């Protein structure tokens, strides 16, 4: 009864504590908005809906690259109730030991979350197994897609897909990709990645503290559907490509064929080649290692990366530049003086057309000299420098010495020498024509890749322009290629000068070194080249460019075959067969085909 006032103190304490709590609660619940966000991040799981990757067709509408369904068998250990494990193993073709191993691994990953039990079940197994799944609770099939190829050709141009690398992730400024996403690697898959990949969709799910799915968040109000990637139509004629690869079996080299008027690439062969299906699916890793280790380098994309001196085919470019500069006319003649430079064949004093037909080296030695030394300065060295710079610009307008801009990665530029190179090698103004005359006949420091060779054939076919060669003619619904593939690129040589070159190239086929490309009913124009390999102790490379028909050309082709001797043999033969097949749809000169397939060019 004493200390009566203390009851008030006690009651006050109760109320005080309660008040403090109410204030703190107010601060957490009403004033602080972080907790709502944290609560959501606890429970919401974002599931990515992967989009359907775009398909690739050939120019005639044949499906070349598609997405094949792949089935993984998944398991949730918590739900597994197997009455007859042996029966299960029989259905899926695994042993009991393997079963135990896999189940243990799955349990280790998570007892309640799904994990892959058997990877990539074949389609046939999937079909048979569908009905049995009812008897195996806890197991389910998860469908995914892999890239698949209808043809065993065009691997080097198509590229493949693989998991995104850390390096690429870093450079992904738009944060489009996540760890484990697939991205196009090399070829069309890589260049057109943005169009092919489509857009991801998102599904928001609710999960509990252990990550087990508990239903859709807000009934899918925030979910978005995925958008399929755009389909591409390639410029390539896949049956022609197939034929070309057959012709190149067992050989190393390249075939590039272009439709001159449009720059569309009809064929794009790098030999040795490989089946694109090797770089997809289960054995991707193993197959890739094998291909990478192969000494014949099947992964090296020769049409774009195999650079070598152009050889005799370059003489046509020299002729055209000479005509444009006016230092020669079609009637200009030069003696075939084998003292200044070596030559072959029974000719002595050719005009331009003849010189091209027989590929006279001294003729072009003279042309080049006149080209470089036009009297722009009294000092020979300076004069040569001025002339060389001028020449270089001309040559580059023919698509040489710089990447053309094809829609494939890793295009090499080739090389056209200029004053800066020789200044570096010999010193400023310490070189003149006599130092660098090898360039006259396409040797020396010039470097060209097969794509540029084919493009050259197209330029001549078009009489003076080219459209940047490209692999894809149509993207998605639009039906248009990219803008840069619709413009004409003119050389610095006017069209009227091209006629004499065209006639000369026709002579080469009819009477000259290109006779293996002669077709009875179609007028073909071409030029041989032979790349000298003496310094490497190997056989020469066989090189040939051609286009047909002479008037209104439909195909321009460049072929090179490594270590196959003179251009007249392997390369010319193959070019002829390619043109015949493309323009006629069949091969009538069976003997030529046999000759090429036999591959016996050194004799």
């Amino acid at each position: 009864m004493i200390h009566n006032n203390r009851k008030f103190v006690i009651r006050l304490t109760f109320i005080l504590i309660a008040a403090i709590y109410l204030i703190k609660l107010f601060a957490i619940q009403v004033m602080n908005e972080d907790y709502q966000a944290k609560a959501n991040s606890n429970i919401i799981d974002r599931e990515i809906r992967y989009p359907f990757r775009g398909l690739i067709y050939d120019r005639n509408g044949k499906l070349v690259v598609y997405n094949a369904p792949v089935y993984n068998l998944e398991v949730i250990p918590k739900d597994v109730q197997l009455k007859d494990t042996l029966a299960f193993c029989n259905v899926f073709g695994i042993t009991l030991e393997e079963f135990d191993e896999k189940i243990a691994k799955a349990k280790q990953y998570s007892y309640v979350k799904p994990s892959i039990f058997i990877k990539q079940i074949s389609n046939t197994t999937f079909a048979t197994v569908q009905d049995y799944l009812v008897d195996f609770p806890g197991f389910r099939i998860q469908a995914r897609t892999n890239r698949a190829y209808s043809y065993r050709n065009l691997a080097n141009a198509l590229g493949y897909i693989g998991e995104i690398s850390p390096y690429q992730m870093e450079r992904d400024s738009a944060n489009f990709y996540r760890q484990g996403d697939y991205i196009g690697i090399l070829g069309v898959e890589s260049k057109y990645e943005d169009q092919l990949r489509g857009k991801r969709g998102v599904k928001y799910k609710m999960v509990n503290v252990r990550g087990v799915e508990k239903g859709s968040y807000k009934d899918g109000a925030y979910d978005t559907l995925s958008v399929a990637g755009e389909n591409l139509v390639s410029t390539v004629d896949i049956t022609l490509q197939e034929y070309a690869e057959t012709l190149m079996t067992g050989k190393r080299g390249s075939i590039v064929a272009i439709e001159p008027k449009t720059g569309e690439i009809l064929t794009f062969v790098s030999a040795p080649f490989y089946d694109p299906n090797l770089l997809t699916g289960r054995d991707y890793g193993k197959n890739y290692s094998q291909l990478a280790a192969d000494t014949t380098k099947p992964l090296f994309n020769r049409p774009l990366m195999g650079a070598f001196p152009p050889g005799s085919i370059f003489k046509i470019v020299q002729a055209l530049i000479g005509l444009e500069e006016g230092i020669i006319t079609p009637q200009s003649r030069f003696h075939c003086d084998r003292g200044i430079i070596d030559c072959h064949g029974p000719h002595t004093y050719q005009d331009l057309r003849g010189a091209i037909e027989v590929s006279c080296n001294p003729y072009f030695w003279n042309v080049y000299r006149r080209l470089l030394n036009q009297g722009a300065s009294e000092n020979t060295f300076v004069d040569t420098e001025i002339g060389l710079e001028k020449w270089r610009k001309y040559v580059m307008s023919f698509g040489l010495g710089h990447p053309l801009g094809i829609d494939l990665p890793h295009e090499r530029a080739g090389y056209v020498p200029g004053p800066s190179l020789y200044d570096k090698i010999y010193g400023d103004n310490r070189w003149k024509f006599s130092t660098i005359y090898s360039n006259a006949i396409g040797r020396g420091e010039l470097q060209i890749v097969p794509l540029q060779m084919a493009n050259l054939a197209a330029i001549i076919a078009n009489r003076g322009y080219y459209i940047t060669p490209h692999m894809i003619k149509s993207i998605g619904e639009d039906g248009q290629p990219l803008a840069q593939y619709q413009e004409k690129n003119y050389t610095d040589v006017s069209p009227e000068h091209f006629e004499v070159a065209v006639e000369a190239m026709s002579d080469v086929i009819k009477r000259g070194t290109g006779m293996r490309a002669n077709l009875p009913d179609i007028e073909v124009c071409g030029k041989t080249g032979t790349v000298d390999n003496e310094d490497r102790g190997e056989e020469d490379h066989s090189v040939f460019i051609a286009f047909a028909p002479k008037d209104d050309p439909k195909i321009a082709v460049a072929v090179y075959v490594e270590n196959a001797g003179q251009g007249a043999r392997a390369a010319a033969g193959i070019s002829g067969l390619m043109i015949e097949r493309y323009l006629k749809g069949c091969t009538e000169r069976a003997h030529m085909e046999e000759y090429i397939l036999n591959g016996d060019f050194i004799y």
Partner: protein
Amino acid sequence: MRESNQLVNRLDWGTIILYFLLVSLGWLNIFAVVYDIQADQSIFDLSLRSGKQLVWIVAAGLLIATIMLVDFRFYSSFAYFFYGGIILILIFVLLFGREIAGSKSWFAIGSFRMQPSEFAKFATALAVAKYLSTNNRVFYNLKSQLTLFAIIGLPAVLIILQGDTGTAMVYAAFVLVFYREGFSPLLLGIGIAAVILFVLTLFINQVYLIIAVVVTAFLLIGLNTKKTKRIVTIAVTSFAVISLIVSVDFLVTDVLKPHQQNRIKALINPDGDPLGYGWNVTQSKIAIGSGGMWGKGFLQGTQTKFDFVPEQSTDFIFCTIGEEHGWLGSSVLIVLFVWLLYRVTIIAERQKSSFARIYGYSVAAILFFHFAVNIGMTIGLFPVIGIPLPFFSYGGSSLWAFTILLFILLKLDAHRLQMLTR
């Protein structure tokens, strides 16, 4: 019959209604915790905790009936027997009990489990009430003061030995009773000051505190230069305070066990290790904080449904209210509890017998301690110690123990006019 009519009329129905309200709300919230949206569940399902709690509730009803039927004098007469019995059981549990979740505090007979430490609370309350009511001038006699502390100390020590330090702390609540009964406020004040100092040391750098103490001491000495005795007192006190500050570090690092240290750490800085020792508090605050003003709705609490808060049906049951019923719901619950406590003090004050009054305040003290600490720990104002929210948390032992605690008081209250004043 007349007697039971009398009883019915004299019972404090306000308190009884509050009791049933709390118990029912508790039961509904336990269901919200175990609720699984994808499963087809009934709140009565005996395999779920909500079903089991219902069983405990029904059994509690039987306990209430028993308490009411027994003669009111029984409680005061047999107070020491209750106490002695519980002490023996506590010792027994230490030797033969089952260890669950790190503390050896459970008795298991078949599938039936009981936690004696819960029942020790009301037994100790009876003993304290008996002792204080039969000894006059306790607080002026050192020997009796020591006996008093021993009465509450003994069960506390036994429970600490079980490994359940949290429950042992409940016995500190009895100081509230001592205060009401005349215990020197100075000592009480010192006790509270020590606790506050302890807490401050956890949050504020020791050096600053020591400097503050020294400065204050000099100021006080400066004001009292004439009185040597005072200077000495000030000096001694300052010294004691500084040693306390310094000893906190020692206490925390060397005396407390790692998991207890973690709980202190979690209190000071829950974001320091949100996935480790800070998990409980972080998740609890997220659940409560995400409730907003109105809450997410019954059975709609995502953190509750998806099991993010550990121990949510027992120690963290308050989170369910916070998340599903928002600030409004939390306020209602707090108001109900404070109201209950208030009513208990009113009942205690109107007792003629000091035994009943002291027992009443013990009930208030014990309930207050649980309420304050339990809710405090869910909102990050108190370290996590495992004590339940009375009448609300899941658990047979705690529900029965609190029921007995409360209803003995109600029984005594019903007979208050029949008791002799002492």
